[in-house]
């Protein structure tokens, strides 16, 4: 920090200039809660598209994020809530210059064995091919899954933005 910046900091009536402003102007946060209804998967995709609409990115990059979000939210509804439409899915998006972090949280049945669940073609008794986590892994830079059986699951998707 040079002297000029220092003086403006000291003259500032509050601490915003130094402690808040740089962080404030660069990051955007959006939270959305919705019922575990299948039509809300499209809403979740629409939200990330809308948040990223001002960013300079390729259509392919945007498609990748949309697929990953679609899979995370579908998992919450199909696996977490076992297709019960009365649950709540919470989605939080954090957008900075460098990256987008999307957190999808449900309070459903949880995952007993996360490692097994993340293997392709693990899903049984349905036709989704177990591709959900495979797509999340290939299309995002980082996928983190935290789950407590009978309590819920939180999936954190991170995508670096150029």
């Amino acid at each position, binding site marked *: 920090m040079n002297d000029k910046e220092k003086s403006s900091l000291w003259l500032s009536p509050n601490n915003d200039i130094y402690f808040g402003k740089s962080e404030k102007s660069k990051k955007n946060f959006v939270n959305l809660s919705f019922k575990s209804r*299948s039509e809300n998967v499209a809403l979740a995709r629409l939200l990330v598209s809308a948040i990223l609409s001002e960013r300079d990115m390729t259509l392919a990059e945007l498609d990748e994020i949309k697929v990953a979000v*679609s899979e995370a939210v579908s998992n919450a509804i199909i696996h977490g809530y076992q297709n019960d439409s009365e649950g709540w899915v919470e989605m939080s998006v954090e957008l900075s210059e460098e990256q987008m972090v999307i957190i999808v949280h449900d309070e459903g049945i949880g995952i007993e064995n996360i490692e097994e669940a993340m293997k392709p073609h693990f899903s049984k008794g349905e036709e*989704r091919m177990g591709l959900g986590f495979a797509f999340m892994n290939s299309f995002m830079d980082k996928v983190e899954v935290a789950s407590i059986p009978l309590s819920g699951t939180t999936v954190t998707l991170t995508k670096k933005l150029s």
Partner: protein
Amino acid sequence: MEIITKIKKYQNRDWLYLKPSGELDMASADQLKKTIIEGLAKSGCRMLWLDFALVSFIDSSGLGVLLGRYRELAPLGGKIIITHANAQVYRLLFASGLHRIMEIDRPASFKYVKEGM
């Protein structure tokens, strides 16, 4: 999801032709599945032609419907072809490996599609 259903002649065979429109995710997957199964049963066709010209998005729920139908049709000597997929759909057909068991035509713009992702 609106789905146009027809019977078309192609390569001297009757094909069940379906043209769905919209996004193919878990909200529309069941409807597509039901329409295909009913169409196949009613027509007796074993050949399935999916025209994805009006499908803007697909995820694993949509791909699952395709794989499920392939598993039913293949033992009967049936076949699935997919035409007019957009770049996003085309890419996921490859990423999922479905391109190995179905006939898929190239989309007009497939710049970012690389085999195997």
